């Protein structure tokens, strides 16, 4: 089954072309590595899927259903979750509250079980701002887990993260893969891409220049 498909997505910001006629398909349970230089359009591609920006042209399908006309919150409710390149945690809220926002009514002990999985249980009552960069990333992973998202979009989850937290993040990603989640991973380290991804797309100036 095709989990996510983009057809001819284009987006311009003023005169800058961020995405130019981008199309691809990704099967359920697979991980796509998204690579490319700075400003090549990787984040904009994720934003187009979650409707953080509205594409100028093109269509997005999730499990065969067209979603690009839906508002962002409805897309999220379909089971599409993401980890942001920056600013993804609510810094003035506690670690637990950050998870409870995502869990929407699920019990606190469910949230605690997941905090344990991402090694943040002792930080439960602390403000998210007090976490390290890597711990903030892990917290975002916790949200994706608590929501049980089917499609998970990861925007450079290893950037600026310590070696130890990188290992934790990698093992969380592997666990999500074992659970059959579909993942799009933006990442610069090619060895890591090789380890984690089934297919690769490279962007340059908003166009796909390589597929593997």
């Amino acid at each position, binding site marked *: 089954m095709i989990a996510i498909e983009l057809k001819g997505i284009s987006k311009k910001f003023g005169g800058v072309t961020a995405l130019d006629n981008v199309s691809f398909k990704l099967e359920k349970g697979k991980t796509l590595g998204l690579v490319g230089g700075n400003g090549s359009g990787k984040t904009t591609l994720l934003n187009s899927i979650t409707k953080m920006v509205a594409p100028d042209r093109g269509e997005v399908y999730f499990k065969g259903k067209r979603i690009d006309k839906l508002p962002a919150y409805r897309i*999220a409710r379909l089971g599409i979750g993401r980890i942001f390149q920056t600013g993804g945690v609510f810094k003035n809220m506690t670690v637990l509250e950050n998870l409870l*926002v995502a869990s929407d009514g699920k019990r606190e002990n469910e949230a605690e079980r997941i905090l344990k999985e991402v090694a943040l249980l002792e930080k439960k009552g602390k403000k998210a701002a007090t976490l390290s960069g890597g711990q903030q990333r892990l917290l975002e992973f916790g949200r994706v887990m608590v929501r049980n998202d089917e499609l998970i979009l990861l925007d450079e989850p290893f950037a600026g993260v310590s070696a130890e937290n990188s290992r934790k993040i990698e093992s969380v990603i592997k666990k999500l893969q074992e659970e059959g989640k579909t993942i799009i991973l933006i990442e610069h380290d090619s060895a890591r891409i090789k380890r984690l991804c089934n297919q690769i797309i490279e962007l340059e100036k908003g166009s796909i220049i390589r597929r593997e």
Partner: protein
Amino acid sequence: MIEAYILHLLIFICIYAILSMSLNLITGYAGMLNLGHAAFFGIGAYASVLIVMAGFPFWLGFIAAGAIAAFFGLLLSVPALRLRGDFLAIATLAFGEIIRSILVNWTEFTRGPLGIPGIPKPEIFGIAFDSLWMYFILAFIIAAVAYFVLRHLLNSNFGIALKAIRENESVAASLGKNVNLLKMQAFVVGAFFAGLAGSLFAHYITFIDPGTFVLGETILMLLMVALGGMGSLEGSILGAIILILLPEPLRFIGLPSAVVGPLRQIIYAAILIVLVIKKPRGLLGTQWFGGIVSDSN
């Protein structure tokens, strides 16, 4: 005499605690700077008075005060959804001004600037709340109910979601939060309680005029919220207590009343300045209220 004076202050504290808690919901939790809160207060006051003076029972006027204010909260939330930060503040300011000028100009209904005197004290199912003690009990019960209802709401998913949209709307939306609906609900609930406070105020003072429900009043409520702390209900109660009591000693030092009014304003302004410098998060709060004006996300 002294007992009457204390009861009077306690009644005011109850009324203003409801106002500051309800404003905290909109501004402290949801992060929308609302400079029109006194308008909801006024709408509630006028609605209740007009309904009760038309011969309906107090409880009906009281509930209608909340409901009608909530309806105006819904109206104001429509432009509020499109605006952020300072622009939202200006829109709410304009809303307050529109309501004030309606109260001034719709004289058949409101008697305009003359105000409405002779407002009856409440009677609920045969119990008359005509003494200070009785009124204090009524005000206290309503303030306590408001506190518990708001606390329950804000500790639920709703409150957590409001905090999330205050922090970052896009991220909240990416977690499935319907940001527009949540903001609307915040305005509706906040306005509802402000309307109840309006009813409580009008039937206590027994006289209302449009001059009571103006920007200065909203600023006082905002100051209570900021002093107690954005995002803390207990803080809002504390803020109301402090700011109601603080100017009171001025009464006893024999200053002419022409001086007391402006002096009160100066005290409030001084508190605001000290607060911003020394304790920007308020006494019990989590976030600096200035952040709401200066950044949108």
